[in-house]
């Protein structure tokens, strides 16, 4: 059994100093790895990331993250990635990382994802250039995830996104917001390559449980949904 701790949307601000350290004090005993599904910072300031990195230094298990829209807000996303990586945190942006836990190989693929809507209401590349560019970004994110998953041949495959790949986990959100909370295009590589679990954040008023059309479990781990600083998923039937 592999134990995966997960959370998203910490929205860390410097005034929270001490809070995250306290919340993650025992996670390294409870889980084999920690996933953070984006929006690590409040408004994407490197100062926030630097303090968060120090707070997360209490975590001794591998910590794998993607950035979210808040982490991009101040146009300092590359600085934030560097700061986190300097602290030993694995930041995925269209790439993968492999781990071995008690003889079980774990592959993690991650990217931010983007908006676009779901199913037959998904955005279509028609009309103004702005619409086509908007769609182009989610297409790019989907291709990044596809390439990352294609590089994995591990016992377990985990996907980390910030935006949701399914509509299921948005229940409770205002329907007007659905197109801005994720895109079903992101679920295509998940089903194509086979995945054991997808975690995402971003939908603060959604629900935890969902799945792709191909039956892959999807979990909205936004802290605001979990109402705790992390949840631990016990992946059963995974050896280890």
């Amino acid at each position: 059994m592999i134990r995966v701790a997960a959370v998203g949307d910490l929205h860390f601000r410097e005034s929270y100093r001490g809070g995250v350290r306290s919340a993650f004090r025992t996670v390294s005993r409870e889980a084999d790895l920690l996933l953070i599904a984006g929006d690590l910072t409040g408004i994407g300031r490197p100062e926030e990331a630097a303090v968060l990195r120090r707070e997360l230094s209490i975590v001794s298990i591998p910590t794998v993250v993607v950035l979210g829209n808040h982490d991009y807000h101040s146009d300092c996303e590359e600085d934030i990635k560097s700061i986190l990586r300097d602290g030993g945190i694995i930041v995925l942006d269209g790439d993968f990382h492999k781990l071995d836990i008690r003889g079980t190989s774990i592959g993690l693929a991650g990217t931010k994802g983007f908006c676009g809507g779901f199913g037959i209401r998904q955005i279509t590349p028609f009309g103004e250039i702005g619409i086509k560019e908007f769609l182009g970004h989610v297409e790019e994110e989907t291709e990044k995830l596809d390439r990352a998953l294609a590089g994995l041949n591990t016992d377990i495959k985990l996907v980390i996104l910030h935006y949701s790949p399914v509509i299921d986990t948005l229940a409770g959100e205002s329907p007007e917001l659905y197109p801005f909370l994720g895109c079903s295009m992101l679920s295509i590589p998940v089903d194509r390559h086979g995945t054991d679990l997808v975690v995402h954040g971003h939908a603060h008023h959604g629900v935890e449980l969902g799945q792709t059309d191909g039956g892959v479990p999807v979990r909205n781990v936004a802290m605001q949904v979990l109402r705790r600083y992390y949840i631990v998923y016990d992946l059963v039937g995974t050896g280890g």
Partner: protein
Amino acid sequence: MERDALLGLIRNRLANSVEVGALDIIVEIVDGTVRLSGEVDSRQQREAAAGAVHELAGVHSVINDLVVREMKRPDGHHQMIISAERGRR
């Protein structure tokens, strides 16, 4: 100031404030009185939100109905997921 313009200004201020940085605070305006509601992460964020809005031109008063989200203890909460079924999908 037009109500919709003020609403946009307030939402922008709440989103960009270093101490607030929140997109999901509910903002209502009636005759220059602004009511903030929804959940925030901390008491500091709650107070900072009201302060950020109060100083804007066109805002006469602020009703701060924001509540600080209650968090459960994180430890000990596990959920089982049956895995290793990829080959059968």
